[in-house]
């Protein structure tokens, strides 16, 4: 296939295209402003995510106990909040099908779109966890907010993680006659527990 690589690069190089300079993104960073909890929760409301305020992990544990049925399978990657299944003992990600609730730690939230950054460390041994669970709970310290995606990527710097996702609310689709339906393939609900 190396001949194809050489042929494509040659064809691309032969296109007459004088170099165009890259724009400076500093001005976009400058208008980003400061993050605020009000802005973040307003966006969560807009995108159909639920949010709960709590003081600390004790509140998060209590919320999960009160809101997830006792018999349900819970997988947690939040240290100090134990689920009902032990993720490290599961070697095949397919076995995660049927999990009722996944609880994961968010690194930071983005006010303008309600997304929370989850990296490989937050997902535990299986990347599929926040997608395959029927319901998703994200634990996020209220201090960890950025205003825009510019600030978000500034915070990520170089990729520190082999995989990561900006996750904004429950999975949804409007593919049937533009009717919004929540719960397409991923989680049917997304709750952000804002602690601190």
């Amino acid at each position, binding site marked *: *296939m190396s001949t*194809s690589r050489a*042929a*494509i*690069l040659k*064809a*691309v*190089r032969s*296109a007459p*295209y*004088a170099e*165009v*300079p*890259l*724009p400076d*993104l500093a001005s*976009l960073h400058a*208008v980003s402003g400061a993050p605020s909890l009000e802005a973040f929760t307003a*966006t969560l409301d807009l*995108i159909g995510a639920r949010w709960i305020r709590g003081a600390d992990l004790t509140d998060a544990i209590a919320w999960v106990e009160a809101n997830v049925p006792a018999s349900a399978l819970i997988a947690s990657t939040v240290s100090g909040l134990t689920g009902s299944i032990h993720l490290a003992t599961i070697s095949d*990600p397919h076995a995660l*099908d049927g999990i009722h609730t996944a609880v994961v730690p968010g690194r930071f939230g*983005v006010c*303008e*779109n*309600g*997304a929370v950054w989850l990296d490989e460390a937050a997902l535990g041994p*299986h*990347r*599929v966890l926040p*997608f395959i669970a029927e319901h998703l709970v994200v634990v996020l310290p209220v201090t960890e907010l950025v205003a*825009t*995606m*510019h600030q978000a*990527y500034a915070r*990520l710097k*170089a*990729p520190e*993680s*082999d*995989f*990561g*996702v*900006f996750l*904004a609310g*429950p*999975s*949804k*689709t*409007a*593919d*049937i*006659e*533009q*009717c919004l*339906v929540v*719960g*397409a*393939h*991923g989680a049917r609900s997304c709750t952000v527990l804002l602690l601190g």
Partner: protein
Amino acid sequence: MTSAKPASDHAAAAHEFLRDPARAAWHDQTLWMVRMKRDRVAARVPEWEQLREAASQIKEHTLSRLAHYLEEFTAKAEANGIQVHWARDGDEHNRIVLDILQKRGARHLVKSKSMLTEECHLNAHLQAHGVEVIDTDLGERIVQLDQKPPSHIVMPAIHLQRKEVGDIFHEHLGTPAGLDDAQALTEAARQHLRGHFLQADAALTGVNFAIAETGGFVVCTNEGNADMGAHLAPVHIACMGIEKLIPKQEHLGVFIRLLARSATGQPSTVFTSHFVRPHPGQEMHIVLVDNGRSRQLSRPDFRKSLACIRCAACFNTCPVYRRSGGYSYSYFIAGPIGSILAPNVDGARHASMPFASTLCGSCTAVCPVKIDIHGQLLKWRQEITQEGHAPKLKKIAMRLTAFAFAHPWLYRTGGWFMRKFLPLVNLLKLDPWTRHRDLPSAPPQSFGAWYRNKNKSQKP
């Protein structure tokens, strides 16, 4: 590039679409609603125009140094443990994908949305070699079951009404006859596709952005289907056109802010997934596809079309797309952007597409990467006409007009005739325009007569 195949005519196909005026009005309204959502969410970003300008410049810069960024991306991706493949055309792309699958003995492939694989006709190729291909985006699955291509690049089944989806699901998924509740139909698809996700031995995704700096790539979905496939299957193949590159990770900030707002009026997609390295024990492949892109890059008038991020804002705003539907276009990417991409692929076959526009410029106004879409449509019309692919009637009309302009007496007589007999045109519906509306009434005198009278009256 020419083809022996006859060009399918947009106007004729649109005429068929308009035979059902109620349905055409519904299609128009549905897409206009998406356009309005886009406007509302864009208006909440005060620096929107600044973002569009930055996106445009980043894309132009990348295209002007594309070979450099392709090499940087490949080196980084390979260092990350991703296998990179190069395909000059659709056939080579299909062979590469089949080869990857056969080496692993994979026979069940789940696919998330990828317009590139539509372009290359991958599904048919794999199916002919015994691979089961399941499209997992809900809209794509609906049209796949219906054995049709997508009619819109973001909302593939936008042409279908709930009841029709219910009929398709009843036939193929065994849902109760007459079920037309979107929630229940989506749930049926969720259960059906969950089974396929759990069985698949390979997953294929598209790529929204590939980052040269990191060797990683980003896939955006609302449903979570790309992630369900890619994280469960032992093999993940990501297919991308060579124009999907951006130089740095920080540039994602610009594009992610623009993409979903422009596409569906959401502040972002639900899932914006960043793949950098395969999971231990998993294989990850990237297929880089040219298939005419380097040719488009060498055409200064048209190369900016390669900046497209496939948001389909130009579809939703286009008065012609909204009133003619995706299947009226001869290329699998319909709408204004499809109409400037298709002639690069086959000018003769898609000769009517650049004419499927009023040149109102709304496409250019909403494009998040500032492609001069309506300007390129006009340029393609000129090229297509010069190459002799314009419709016969148009050629005759142009010759007659040129003759009239060259002979003032004929021009004057023609003008007098039109002023007198214009109501007849409305009455007899002589022009396609008058099928749905009347021409405005003609002024009582010609511009020439008005000008002469004006000068006369102003003389001292």
